[in-house]
């Protein structure tokens, strides 16, 4: 049986799976844009449900190869064979590799912590000075 197009699997999964709001957030700073505030990534609840259920999302490597494909050219990820279920932690790692710039999670060699996975409760709800937020640096004693 063919696995069809990714969008079709997402549409079918939306009817079948209950959304899952993640208990994690991903904080990151882009080292190529020093003036930008820390960004906070929130997984989509339908996407998380698909990741936990399995047999819907394509391998992360297909997105990485597609990132090198010129704009407008055919892409691999919509037609790739889906992967099995992930834990929530594995899904967060997958999402970092999919939606975070590679400068953040792969290429950065500096000493500053620019990527953190935190529980949602650790994110301030008071958004005063939001455009000046940076990731708190913990200095070892």
């Amino acid at each position: 049986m063919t696995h069809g197009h990714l969008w079709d699997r997402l549409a079918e999964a939306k009817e079948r799976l209950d959304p899952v709001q993640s208990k994690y957030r991903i904080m990151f700073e882009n080292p190529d844009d020093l003036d930008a505030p820390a960004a906070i990534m929130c997984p989509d609840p339908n996407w998380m449900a698909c990741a936990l259920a399995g047999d819907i999302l394509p391998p992360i490597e297909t997105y990485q190869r597609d990132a090198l494909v010129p704009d407008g050219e055919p892409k691999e990820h919509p037609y790739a064979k889906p992967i099995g279920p992930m834990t929530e932690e594995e899904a967060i790692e997958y999402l970092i590799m999919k939606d975070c710039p590679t400068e953040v999670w792969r290429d950065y060699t500096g000493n500053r912590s620019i990527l953190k996975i935190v529980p949602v409760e650790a994110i301030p709800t008071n958004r005063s000075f939001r455009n000046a937020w940076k990731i708190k640096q913990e200095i070892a004693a």
Partner: protein
Amino acid sequence: MSTLNVANISDGTDSVPTGYVVKGSAKSWVNLYGKETPYIVASMNVSSLVDAGAGRYEIYLTSSMSSSNEYAITATKQDTTVNTDSTCFDVINSRSADAYQIISIEDGVSADSNNVNAVQMGELA
């Protein structure tokens, strides 16, 4: 899941080629809460929301569009707490085949919004 392969869809009186339905349906949509700790309320074909600053929301797609330019997108806010005398609107700041950024504007500056909505139409990759 099974697939219907038909050229036309009819209600018994009028008929329309299937392509109109397939190509004319939204390929992604999102409704997000943009204050306090922003999160996605409801969506289709979205993998994540990135809170990139005050009133700045980046939406990443699970299944990419065919190219960065050959799609249409619209975004709007619903916010009962804004000053109704002020100028409020959402703009698409940047876009690619797999993501776009919405900026929520109030009185000329980017500002958090309770309820941001976006719909994307066009060709999938």
